[in-house]
C-alpha cells in the first residue's frame, strides 16, 4: 500500500531554489532555502509572521529589488535561467510570474482596461476584436464573465472586494503567465468569498502553477497539493500537503500546525 502522502505524482518543477539566501541590510530573511514548485499544482507556504514566506514569494519575480539594501545569493531556476542574476530580463520574468496581493489592487480604470493593461505594457496589443476576446476569455477564466459582461466599461473600483481580487487574477491571466504567486489572496475576504476563490484556484491549476502564501493554515490544508513550513527564514519542511498535515516529520512543523507554537 502506498501511503496517501506519497501517492500524488510529482510533476515537472517550474521554480527551483537552491541555497537561496536573502538579507535586508544585516538581517538575514532567507537562509539556504531549497524548494521545488511543481507544475499545475498548488503549493502553499505557511509559517508565522516574519518567517520569510512572503519574502521568498517576492524573490520569484524579483519584487524585492524595490527594497533598499536587499542582497540575494543562491539560485532560483526558472526555465533554465537563474533569475537572481543581474542580467535577468525582469519584464519577461514578471510576465511569466504574476502576483496577486493581499488587498486587491485594480487600477482606477475600467474593467476592460484593467485586463488589457498588461498586454499594452508587454507590447502584446492586437486587433480590436481580438482584445474583446481576451477580455472575455480572461473574465471567464476567473468566473466573472456572467457578472461583468455588461459592466466592462465600469470603473474597477466600483466592484466588490471579491470581484476586484478576481479581476486582479484575470489581469494576470491575460498575459499568459506560467506561475501565479498569491500572497494572502483571501485575507480581506469573508468566508464565502474565500471559498469561491479557493474553488477558482482549483480551476486555475489546470493551466497554471500556483504558489500561495497564507497565515490561514486551514486554507493551506484545503487548497494545496504540496506545502512548505517556514520558520525564521528556513524551510523547515516541504512535502505533500497530506503528509505535512497528517504526519509532519519535524517537531517544529507539528507544533505550529497544532497551534502549540506561534
Amino acid at each position, binding site marked *: 500500500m502506498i501511503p*496517501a502522502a506519497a501517492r500524488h505524482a510529482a510533476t515537472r518543477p517550474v521554480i527551483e531554489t537552491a541555497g537561496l539566501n536573502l538579507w535586508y541590510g544585516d538581517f538575514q530573511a532567507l537562509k539556504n532555502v531549497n524548494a521545488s514548485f511543481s507544475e499545475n499544482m498548488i503549493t502553499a507556504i505557511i509559517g508565522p509572521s516574519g518567517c520569510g514566506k512572503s519574502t521568498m514569494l517576492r524573490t520569484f519575480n524579483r519584487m524585492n529589488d524595490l527594497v533598499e539594501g536587499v542582497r540575494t545569493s543562491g539560485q532560483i531556476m526558472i526555465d533554465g535561467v537563474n533569475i537572481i542574476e543581474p542580467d535577468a530580463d525582469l519584464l519577461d520574468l514578471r510576465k511569466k510570474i504574476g502576483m496577486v496581493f493581499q488587498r486587491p489592487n485594480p487600477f482606477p480604470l475600467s474593467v476592460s482596461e484593467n485586463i488589457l493593461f498588461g498586454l499594452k505594457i508587454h507590447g502584446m496589443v492586437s486587433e480590436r476584436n481580438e482584445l474583446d476576446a481576451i477580455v472575455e476569455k480572461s473574465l471567464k477564466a476567473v468566473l466573472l464573465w456572467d457578472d461583468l459582461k455588461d459592466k466592462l466599461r465600469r470603473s474597477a473600483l466600483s466592484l466588490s472586494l471579491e470581484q476586484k481580487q478576481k479581476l486582479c487574477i484575470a489581469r494576470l491571466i491575460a498575459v499568459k503567465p506560467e506561475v501565479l504567486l498569491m500572497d494572502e489572496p483571501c485575507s480581506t475576504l469573508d468566508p464565502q468569498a474565500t471559498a469561491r476563490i479557493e474553488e477558482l484556484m482549483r480551476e486555475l491549476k489546470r493551466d497554471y502553477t500556483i504558489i500561495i502564501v497564507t497565515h490561514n493554515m486551514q486554507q493551506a490544508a484545503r487548497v494545496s497539493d504540496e506545502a512548505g513550513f517556514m520558520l525564521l527564514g528556513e524551510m523547515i519542511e516541504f512535502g505533500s*500537503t497530506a503528509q505535512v498535515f497528517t504526519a509532519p516529520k519535524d517537531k517544529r512543523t507539528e507544533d505550529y500546525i497544532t497551534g502549540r507554537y506561534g
Partner: protein
Amino acid sequence: MQRHFDDQLKDLHQEILKMGVMTQEAIFRSIEALKNRDKSQAEEVIANDKKIDLIENAIDEQCIDLIARNQPMAGDLRFIATALKINADLERIADLAVDICQRVVELVEKPLLKPLIDIPKLSAIAQKMVKDSIDAFVSRDSGLAKKVMLADPEADQLRDKVQSELINDYMAKDPSTVDRAVALLLIARYLERICDHATNIAEDVVYMVEGKIVKHHEENLE
C-alpha cells in the same frame, strides 16, 4: 455552491460501497463453500482477504486526510466519522468470512456430520443484515438501519439453537463428533458475530443520518 470537498466525499462513499460489495461477496462465497464442501472456493476467499485489508487501509487514510484538510463540520463530519467506523466493521466481517472458510477447509477432510439446516438459515439472516446495513448507509436510510437492528435477536436465538443441538445431540452422545461439531458451532458463532457487526453499522448509520446515538441507548430507537 458545489464544493471540491463534495467530490472528495463522493469518492469516499464509492470506496465504502466497494468495500461493502467485496465483503458481501466474501460472506456469500464462504457459505457456498460450506454448503458445497468446496475447499478451493474456501481457499480463494481466504486469499482474497488481503485485497479487502488493503482497501481498509486506503479508506482509513482517505478519512484522516479529509478530516485534516477540510475541518469537516456537522453532517460532513458525521459522514466521515461513520465511514471510518463502518470501514472497520466491514473488514471484521470479511475476516469472519475467512474464519468460516478455515473451518470449511478442516471439515471437508472429514465425513459430513449432519445435513445443514439452521446454519444456512442463520447465514441468510447475516447476509440480509449486512446487505441492508450497507444499503442503509448508501441511501442514508435510518428507517432501514433500525430494521437491521431489530433483526439481531433472531440471529442470537438461532445461534443458541444450533449450539444446544450440537452439544446435546452430538458431542454429548458421541465424542468422535466433537471436532466437527465444534467447527460447526464456531461457524454459527462467526455468523452471529457478523450480525453484530451489521448491527454496529446500522447504529452508526442512524447517528450519521439523525445525529442521534442509539448504540447502548435503545430508548433513542424511535
